[in-house]
């Protein structure tokens, strides 16, 4: 029997993998992938908790919203990465330090 805890464990693993990717990858695209992983982990949690709301399906509705929002965010983020690449000729976040000022 698959319980809520299984979902949460899978979600936590996904989140951890995404977090690792965000913090450690040397490529902005893969950082973006990590972000997607973390969003998906949270969506999985929404869906998993959604079974406690059988009247309105709030969890599933929010999950759909989140997927749409994630898609929009990926589009914006890719556009930013493209521009960054044009500007810096690299997508390695280690090399882009203009935020320090």
């Amino acid at each position, binding site marked *: 029997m698959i319980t809520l805890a299984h979902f949460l464990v899978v979600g936590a693993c996904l989140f951890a993998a995404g*977090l690792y990717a*965000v*913090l*450690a990858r040397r490529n902005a695209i893969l*950082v973006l992938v990590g972000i997607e992983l973390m969003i998906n982990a949270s969506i999985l949690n929404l869906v998993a908790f959604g079974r406690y709301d059988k009247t309105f399906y709030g969890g599933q509705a929010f999950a759909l919203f989140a997927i749409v929002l994630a898609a929009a965010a990926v589009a914006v983020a890719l556009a930013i990465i493209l521009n960054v690449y044009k500007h810096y000729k690299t997508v390695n*976040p*280690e090399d*882009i*330090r*203009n*935020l*320090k*000022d």
Partner: protein
Amino acid sequence: MPTQTCPLLATLAAVILPLAAFVLSAALGRKAKSGVVSIAAIALSLLAAGYVFSQVWNQSVLRAQWEWFTVGAHAFHVGILVDNTSALMLLLVNIIALPVHIYSIAYMKGDPGIHRYWTYLSLFCFAMLGLTVADNLLLMYICWELVGFASYLLIGFWFTRESAVQANKKAFIMNRIGDIGLLIGIAIIYSSFGTLDIHTLFGPQALVAGGYLSGGWLTTAGLAFFLGAMAKSAQFPLHGWLPDAMEGPTAVSSLIHAATMVAAGVFLLARVFPLFNQTTLLVMTVTGSVTALAAAFFALTQYDIKRILAFSTISQLGFMMVGIGTGMHHVALFHLTTHAFFKCLLFLCAGVVIHEMQHLREKQALDIDPQDIRNMGGLRAAMPVTFGTMLIASLALTGFPLTGGYLSKDALLVHAFEWAALQPTAVKIIPYLLTAVSVLTSFYIFRLLAKVFFGTPATQKLSGGIATVHDAPMLMRVPMLFLAACSLFPLFTFHPLNDGHVWLLQGLMPDTMLPPLGALHLAIPLLTLGGTLAMAFLAWKWYVQARYPLAPRGVLYRLSLRQGYLDAVYDRVAVRPVLILAQFLRWIDGRLVDGLVNSVAGVGRSLASAALWTDFRMIDGLVRFIGKFASGLGNVLRRTQAGRVQQYLALAFFIVLVVLLYHIFAQA
């Protein structure tokens, strides 16, 4: 009084001219080498003095006074008082000074400091002339000090010589002792009578004779004045400076230390004569005789030609003191006058001899003292004029008939006998003592003459050089001949053997005379003449024919040569204690006074360094700590602002994690 105006102006001119010459020479500095200014001043001064003398002598007394300054209700004056005594001294100083000035042209020729010489000489003449005509004791004291100061400058004229510096210090300090005496005397007079005017105090209606002053104070004042005169006139035991003063140029010795400055003491005593009571006069007489005897004794064995003459001067000053002490100040002044001429001449002759010996030394490259009579001999043929004039002066010194010295010395001795006849037993010996001294005088002066002008020089080298010695040049010869003429009797009287007709004595005659002893006027001259001839014979026998019979190492001989060991005694008694005291005071000054100041300063310094430490460590430290802290914190924090996105994210995650964990554990 209009009739007095001219003499008054002449007196002023006589005094002021040398002062003007002094100021001018001092202003000209090195350019005043020729001495024309000084000589012109003294010549004009002599003319003025001669005119004053002709107007004043045995006529009216010249007086003028101007108010000088006022202290409270007491006015002090400057003024002129010219009576017979003053007029005589005024003329005498000038008449001696002029030949000496002229002589100096030749004597000081080529000296690098000659401009100073003329300046000092003019200053001295001004001071001395001022002293003679000053009408009050204050002015007189000022001139008295100036005389001492000018003498100090002239004794130390060759100040590169250590001995000259020692000598002028000695003269200055010894004179200072006398000056204190004079100052005390003046103070006593002023506090008792409220005036310093000489005419009021000591004139015909002498205030001091009025009995206002009690006996003790009168004696004290008299002794104080006498102390002043003792130092200035080199009386025993304050005579030590005069022989040492021979370090000055010989012309200076002749002017200052024979004829004028040393006479100032005698002149002072003659001026204030009414002040002295019997006690003071007796002290003077005794001091004078002791001086005369001691100095003559010291003169017997000296080898330095100038020192012999210096002791001779002291001895003759002793005679003058006896003259004052016996109440016969006119005789003292007469002896002063004759002595001034012949002693000045003696010094000038000695100057010529020294001058030539100096040349001889340079020419022959000898290592001799040009003043030592042992190196001289046989100079008579080479310098006949010097020999002749010196012989005249020496005969005048011994009191040989036909000279001025005969008249004055005879008068002095006769008066001393007359005075002694009235005295109690103990001091009756004094005139005999003086007669003996005059015999000693003959001996030492003939010894000098014999050694210098007769016989043969001590060494072969010297006798070879004698031929090159020549007589005094014209500029020296004329003053010497002039003074030689003045040393003879015609200047003073037409009667060569009797002092009763001397105009000078008649002009200065005091009111009361001692009862005369008739036979003395025959006995004394015969006695002194006999003594003189005997001594001349003795000197001839001993020194010219070189049959000296005595061992030159006797006790008396050494005592005489060392001047009674007085200098050694002074050194022990006065100089050493003063030096020890000075060292002790220096120690006090260095340790206590300076130590106190230093320790106070030390406390202040350590306070300051403590304050500095506080300021530096505490206040500055705090400020610096704050700065360092802020900058350190910044250093730490800026590591977090490296611009790395992932690092920021990691940090954010970490903080969220911490907050989460906190919440979890806080709830648990």
